[in-house]
């Protein structure tokens, strides 16, 4: 995605004579040479590893009775040791893609081994503990090998763990389980920072979003929806603060913190809409949603494409919704739109003036051009 945009921009600049063609090629080559950039070979290797891992898990599921149990356990352990030692040797030789592929197989085969043992010895129950163990082992592997690929596996295992919880307990609050997704999301975020698996960050954020949705299903209280809206908006405003520790953290995390905190706020507002669908309260919630969208565009709309589109989407959906439900009378809706139109126009005027001032100022070279 970014590479395509970069290539387009570079060729545009070359065309306009802003850039030597040679420099453009060098820039592209530099981008392609970065270890984190998209490599088809690496992705295919990851997919191959997942297929092999799945083949392994299904082999286990077929329950081969002709092989004695201890031999089966021995085979499983041999596989675990082989892939990990093999990965270590490949890392030392610098064959990163294959090494990471083996680590993925290693992380998956641990789950397979636990299932195999459960099957051979008729162990039932406690799938949740198995998921915690599986996640923990993947996390340890990701740390020790500093592997971004295993971080992704851990991210998906955190989802699987939450799914197992929901399957077993639905919307009931049971023991430590409800806190586990938060702990796991924090662990995954730590792994993302340590291993440089930037894209896996979304897995952690999405897990938290899913958890919040579950929390609401658990209580179905307006206060929870209000908390989402308020805290989400506060967190979103914080990401825009130019204060030292926050700004550094936010900048290194890219577009995600602002986007997901805004998403939580929008989620809260959406839930409020489902609770308050008539009268003055609905108008207040509607206006708050429009205001939140405008604030989001003003604060992050310029640098953060994800926030921009979510804000546009929320704004448009809100307008359509208000138009469809009619506030009191058609005349009421009309005056509401008139009022909102005037406010948004005023905000637009301020923003345009600010943007002009930024563009004219000496520090017009913006540093915050990072995109998702």
């Amino acid at each position, binding site marked *: 995605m970014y590479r395509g945009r970069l290539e387009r921009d570079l060729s545009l600049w070359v065309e306009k004579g802003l850039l030597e063609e040679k420099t453009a090629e060098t820039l592209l080559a530099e981008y392609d040479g970065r270890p984190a950039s998209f490599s088809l070979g690496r992705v295919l290797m990851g997919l191959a590893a997942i297929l092999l891992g799945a083949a392994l898990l299904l082999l286990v599921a077929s329950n081969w009775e002709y092989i004695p*149990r201890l031999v089966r356990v021995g085979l499983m352990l041999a596989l675990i040791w082989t892939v990990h030692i093999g990965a270590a040797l490949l*890392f030392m030789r610098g064959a990163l893609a294959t090494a990471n592929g083996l680590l993925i197989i290693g992380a998956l085969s641990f789950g397979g081994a636990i299932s195999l043992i459960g099957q*051979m010895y008729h162990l039932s129950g406690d799938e949740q503990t198995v998921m915690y163990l599986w996640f923990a082992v993947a996390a*340890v*592997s990701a740390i*020790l090998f500093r592997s971004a690929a295993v971080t992704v596996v851990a991210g998906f295992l955190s989802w699987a763990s939450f799914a197992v919880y929901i399957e077993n307990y639905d919307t009931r609050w049971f023991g430590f389980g409800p806190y586990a997704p938060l702990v796991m999301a924090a662990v995954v975020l730590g792994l993302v920072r340590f291993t440089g698996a930037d894209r896996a960050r979304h897995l952690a954020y999405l897990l938290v979003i899913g958890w919040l949705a579950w929390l609401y299903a658990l209580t179905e209280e307006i206060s929870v929806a209000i908390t989402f809206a308020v805290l989400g908006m506060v967190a979103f405003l914080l990401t825009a603060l130019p204060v030292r520790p926050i700004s550094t953290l936010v900048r290194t995390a890219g577009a995600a913190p602002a986007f997901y905190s805004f998403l939580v706020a929008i989620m809260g507002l959406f839930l409020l809409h489902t609770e308050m669908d008539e009268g003055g309260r609905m108008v207040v919630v509607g206006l708050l949603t429009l205001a939140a969208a405008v604030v989001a565009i003003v604060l992050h709309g310029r640098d953060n494409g994800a926030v921009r589109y979510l804000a546009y989407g929320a704004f448009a959906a809100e307008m359509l919704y208000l138009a469809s439900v009619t506030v009191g009378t058609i005349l009421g809706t009309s005056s509401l739109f008139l009022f909102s139109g005037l406010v948004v126009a005023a905000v637009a005027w301020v923003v345009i003036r600010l943007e002009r001032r930024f563009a004219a100022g000496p520090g017009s070279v913006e540093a915050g051009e990072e995109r998702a």
Partner: protein
Amino acid sequence: MSFVFAKPQAGRFYIVAAILVAGLQTLILGYIIQSRASILASGTEVLLKTAPVDPRDFLRGDYVVLNYDISSVPVSTVTGGIPAEAGEQTLWVRLKRQQDGFWGIVESSFKELPAASDTVVLRSMPFYSYGPNNGETIRVEYGIERYYVPEGKGKPLEEARNEGVVSIAASVSSSGAAQIRSLVVDGKPAYEEPLY
């Protein structure tokens, strides 16, 4: 954490990492196998009657779901009261050998039951208790509710179970954990479970 492993890329560290990760996995798997084997080796054997209840587990192949007479604990057997609050609970169930050879419930409690002669105390898996006003029985599981059979062999066993001729010999540890020792059809062991 980056300060702990300042330079993990350095050569032999990878071998150490591989040994640590594979070793950790081996330890966990070994622990699971050993804790079951030790229950089989030193636990008290009880014979349990199954009741009619087949899902298919994606990872674990075919298995027969086992439902026991003792899976439904009559509220009348509960001593020491039922917690008023709904939430996570564990039930301890005291079994005694009946005249027909099967073991049945004589007492249950939400607090740990002391050992007594001629009886075995079984501990349920943690479950969600709805509080005192919920029917005449409490549904619990003991971790012995699945019997895995080779693919395709589950159906006959299920039919046998539904005809009420399947029973399970289980071994119960002093802490109340149970493991399946053998599956008995019509009084004859159909599958014996070796220790390992």
